């Protein structure tokens, strides 16, 4: 992969970015993240589980925070430090939540990693409840 160069505005350096040779930004870990668009079960529902497949050849800290009705629920934030699985290919990690609302999102953050770290398929488990806020 060819490097992308950053032509610095505040010093005399040209820096690489997305440089596979290093896992930090000039020595400082950077955070990668994905926030899903909202999903729902058509009414009031419980967000019970979230699964994310992580392909990696080193280690990665993966933190998932549920977002319910546009409000992140930091109390249910769960970090996992993942490392290469026994078969060397991927780790399928599950997070259990107890969020209830109409619209759910997940914020997947990777604040630190080493080596190649990729997010593959994901899944979630919603349990619809009797409507307390009206149905669709």
């Amino acid at each position, binding site marked *: *992969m060819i490097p992308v160069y950053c*032509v610095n505005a505040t010093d005399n350096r040209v820096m690489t970015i997305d440089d596979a040779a290093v896992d930090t930004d000039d020595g400082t870990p950077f955070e990668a993240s994905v926030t899903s668009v909202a999903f729902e079960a058509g009414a009031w529902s419980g967000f019970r589980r979230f699964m994310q497949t992580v392909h990696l050849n080193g280690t990665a800290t993966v933190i998932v925070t549920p977002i319910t009705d546009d409000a992140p629920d930091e109390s249910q934030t769960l970090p996992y430090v993942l490392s290469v699985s026994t078969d060397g290919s991927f780790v399928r990690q599950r997070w259990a939540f107890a969020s209830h609302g109409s619209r759910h999102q997940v914020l997947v953050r990777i604040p630190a990693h080493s080596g190649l770290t990729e997010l593959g398929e994901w899944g979630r488990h919603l349990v619809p409840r009797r409507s307390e806020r009206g149905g669709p």
Partner: protein
Amino acid sequence: MRLHGSEESVRAGWSGIYEDAEPTDAYRKVGFTLVPMGLMDSSANMVRTANSRFAVRGGSQTAVAMLDESGSALTQMLTMQRYSQDGALVVGYRDATQRHTLALYSADLATELARHDITAWPAGPAAVPHAAELFEKMYLADATRQIGARQQLVSVDATGTMVAVAADLGNGSEALKPYTVAVYNNTLFISGQDVGGLSAPAMVRHSFLGVSPDAAGNFDSNAYETVGAAGEYITAMIPGRNVLLVAKENELYRISGFGRALAGWQFVTTPIENTDYVGAIAPKGICFAEGYWYGVSGVGPWRTDGINIEVLVRSRLRSWRQVTHLERAVVRYDPTRRLILFGLVTGSATAINTIWLYDMDAEQFISDWTLPAPANDVYALAQQGVIGPAAKPGVPTFQDDLATLTTVAGSVTLGDTSAPTEIWVDRNTGVFVLDQTLPLGVSTFTIQGLVNSTQYPVKARAVKNGQYTTFSAVGKAYTKLAPPILQAVQTASDTVTLTVEQQAGADSDLSVTRSEGGLTLATFTTLPAGSIETVTDTQVSVGNLYHYFATTTNAAWPAAIQTAFVEVALGVTTTGVNMLPPSAPAFVDAQATTGSVHITFTPSDNSLQTEVAYSVDGGAAATVTLAAGVAAADVADAAMKGTNRVSVRLRQTDGTNFSAYTEWVVGHTVIALPRISVPSSGADWNVIAMDADIEVEFILKRGTTLLVQTPGTTHSSYYDSGLTAGKPYSYNLTAYRADWPADMNYSGVVTTNTLQPT
């Protein structure tokens, strides 16, 4: 309460960004677009992989820290651009001097090829440089709005030589100060300047076909056109699809046609209708990639195929509100990631701090990268894909102690561990020839098929993607010196004549020595190979064995292999018969008995008899003569009764003359069986007596139970109590000598049985 049968579990990968989309399940539609599963509301520092996963992007590190011509660090970097002749052109600025510096690098930025201050640009505020390449030169312009503060157009060649470009626009030669610059159909297009150095924001000029734009006759004064409204700046000009796209802040135009070597304007200009207010704010705000121009202007990111306009901001409306300073925005093409990089200033920043990634295949924004430092430009340098090795190898060095007569073992410090390394050898033909190519990461090598006593020049270079480094400095490899040939002949009862032939190179010295007495018999300096010398030793005595050495020395050779020698042994006899002793006797312990030892040896001549001299336990020596050709014998003597040390030495004889003796060598007979008896016993006890002729350690066991192991002695007894009346017992006794050979330091076992009285 749970509604049975209504729970969901959906799996998908992550895809593009669509901010503030309605929920994907119950409300699948956003406008009239079906929103796919896995859509993201936002994403940071990720990149889509070829197998549609989302990977955390790689990190950042310094590729170049640029200095001005005097060696002072610059304070901001302004732009970077691909340059076909070298790789990359980079322009920086130093606040203290208010001067600009230009550097040319290899495509991977690993090698600085040229660096000069731009002397044609007087001290002033930082420029807004951008460049276009024509006829193997880069043309560097300054997109500063006010023409009075704008720097002059400069051409740069592959060596960094710069020419300040001037042209006659109708009123004599004047400095060209274009706002934008582009190359289309082998002509240089400039905008923003009218005759007399006047600002003409909408005016475009093109160079004369076939004339270098920095040479005389470069621009025809009538080769100009005004595009759109006269007061509105042409902000960017980017070629593609056989047209030159000309952008203003809210308009796009196409210039098409082919230049002719005629005076006047040679092209056709047509506007793109219904541009939807797209355009560019600055020259780096548009790029062309794979059939589309991508740009950013006040309405957001957009793309066009030159006819239709498509605004791309709609999925990013929330984030777009955070984008500021569009005059600093850059749009770049990354051909390997298949991305368009929108470098944007967001929030309160004043320089580019974010890159929006637009996936050209998925036609979606897929992630934003947060830059490690504020930037004035971002650039994906495509040549990196075929870059050569990062650096040349170090000078080859050699492990001299591993050299042989025909091989040398060397190593080289790799300049690039991801590049194979070639080893070239001059086999003294005056021409270096490729000897071998070391695989990735391998730094050691062996060169074979060489000639002894020879020095070989060796050098190395790295190769990667078909590109080579320069050669390393030349290292020197040395094969071992060939030892001389030495023959020793007894020519009289007191004379040995030695013939020595030099085998090593012409500049080697040679000496002949004798170890007995430490004599140096002769030395020869710089004796050429093939030279034969005769040396006489008259200090010999009959009956002695002499060891002669011929040694070649070359002081120019590495210390580990500076000498080579050959050894010849000669026994001097009364008649001058050249008789050598046999090899020293070797004892075969497995064939020793209590009354004999077994020896083997190699006669110096199978026609000779061998006299065996032996001594048992230091007693008087006796001899026995073996027949010619015999190479093994049992040496037996009545004095050997077991547990004996037997010293043996040998010499050859023809019945009259004798060679010198070998050294004494000591062997051992088998340890004799000890004696055991039970001289007295009771109902529950026994006294066991142990005897041997030679001091041994007694190891006494009842059955397999160890009762005692005594220190070395010839007699001992043991009182064994606690026995049972009327019961039989068996005692086993072994003799042991720790100083005997390991394979024969135990005797056999002798046993006696008892039956306890009742």
